[in-house]
């Protein structure tokens, strides 16, 4: 059982990272992106290339993926939001769907449709021993994944709550017109929020890509949709909510398998989402934390 809990938390931390991205983007821009899973995929491939071509360094891969997905995020934001500010919601949504289709197929052209993996000779240099606790083997890579996740979440928390940029993002999320009137260049803030959200997705891609050592063009689809439902469960605007919901869904999924409901596994996040929507649309925790997040 303890082992399953660890499994669930590892899995859930990825959902949480992706959900955080969704939440940040929705909270600030009030738009839903369906290209987030593909940002994750691009992040993973970038990490893959860095490790394969440059150096087998986890940190370097993450840093480059951060930069790349931030840029990608800005591009997506410009295409799907900036030009479509006064358009109906569905227009933005469709552009992100278009971008998602485009990215998957571009990745397929660049990296080929097949599953790639980092050669084991290189991967061994990244490694990582393992240790045993209560009969469960935990690798340092697993620890690294969890640590980077926690680190990122903390960094995001500090960024949003303790910095000027964070304050401006929150202000823009609450009342972008008023922020605009204060002289804030809200376009830049929107881009920033999208970029930060995308960076989280990109890092998740690297982490999971390296962890499972599998890279393929459609790797973001199901993850994207699930993380999205985690974000809804967390309240769509609540950063802590997304983290908790992501972890929760990860753990519940794992235990569903344990108790013989493997086939239910992928339904759980969506069922959870619908239940939350029906009975508590504001999410597990009221769902206003992004715009409510308090510094002190």
């Amino acid at each position, binding site marked *: 059982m303890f082992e399953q809990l660890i499994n669930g938390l590892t899995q859930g931390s990825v959902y949480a990272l992706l959900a955080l991205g969704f939440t940040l983007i929705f909270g600030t821009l009030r738009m839903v992106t369906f290209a987030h899973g593909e940002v994750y995929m691009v992040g993973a491939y970038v990490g893959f290339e860095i490790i394969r071509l440059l150096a087998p360094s986890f940190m370097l891969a993450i840093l480059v993926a951060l930069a790349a997905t931030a840029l990608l995020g800005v591009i997506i934001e410009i295409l799907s939001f900036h030009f479509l500010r006064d358009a109906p919601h569905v227009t933005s949504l469709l552009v992100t769907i278009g971008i998602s289709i485009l990215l998957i197929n571009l990745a397929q052209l660049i990296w080929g449709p097949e599953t790639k993996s980092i050669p084991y000779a290189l991967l061994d240099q990244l490694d990582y021993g393992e240790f045993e606790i209560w009969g469960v083997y935990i690798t340092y890579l697993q620890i690294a994944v969890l640590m980077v996740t926690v680190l990122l979440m903390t960094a995001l928390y500090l960024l949003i709550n303790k910095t000027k940029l964070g304050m401006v993002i929150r202000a823009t999320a*609450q009342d972008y017109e*008023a922020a605009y009137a*204060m*002289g804030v260049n809200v376009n830049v803030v929107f881009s920033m929020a999208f970029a930060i959200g995308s960076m989280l997705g990109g890092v998740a891609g690297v982490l999971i890509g390296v962890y499972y050592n599998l890279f393929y063009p459609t790797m973001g689809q199901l993850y994207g949709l699930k993380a999205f439902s985690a974000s809804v469960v967390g309240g769509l605007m609540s950063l802590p909510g997304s983290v908790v919901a992501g972890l929760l869904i990860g753990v519940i999924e794992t235990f569903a398998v344990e108790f013989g409901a493997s086939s239910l596994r992928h339904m759980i996040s969506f069922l959870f989402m619908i239940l939350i929507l029906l009975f508590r649309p504001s999410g597990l925790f009221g769902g206003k934390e992004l715009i409510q997040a308090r510094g*002190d």
Partner: protein
Amino acid sequence: MLELTDIDAYYGPIQALKNVSLTVNRGEIVSLLGGNACGKSTTMKTILGLVKPRRGRITFEGQRIDRRPPSVVVKAGISPVLEARRLFPYLTVLENLRMGAYTRRDKKGIEQDIERMYELFPVVRERYRQPASTLSGGEQQMVAMARALMARPKLLIMDEPSMGLSPLYVEKVFEIIETVNRKEGVAILLVEQNANMALSIATRGYVLQTGEIVLKDTAENLLSNPLMQKAYLGVA
């Protein structure tokens, strides 16, 4: 200092401003009066750059500011107190003040100004850790003014500061407007429906009706002008 010349503005196909011209001089308080839906708020939004005029020009200290984004306008020295206050509801009072100083880079000056605001508005000091939404309407108005002043403006434009406030607070707000004007030497463009109150502190006034300026005069003349009552209130 601020000069609007022949401004036309539209919301979709509907004309909201017709040929509006007005000036605000250094250090004075100017009232812009009128009933509902007469174009007061649109005038203010046009000055701020939130609405783009279709015709006409706006200059501030000789600089063209029409069609420029608010960031430029605010940097140039115009700071808004928005209609219905529009504080950031879930930011703390202090954070709201800092948002007001968004365009400034001088950290020291900002901290000093925050202290100054604490003095000018005791409420702000008492409540600085609370989210703005937990404050009462009058308190929020104080914060909104403090926030606007944080930009160290040369001109403050205020959109209906008395709206929805209890008489006691209305009085207080207008007192503070006067104080701010005197102490800080800030020129103020006061968009108001509360004509008597606004004119009592203003030097000059303009009256808008269906998007057009129908009257302009000194405050005293306007107060005693029967036409003004007629145009503004429709009182026979």
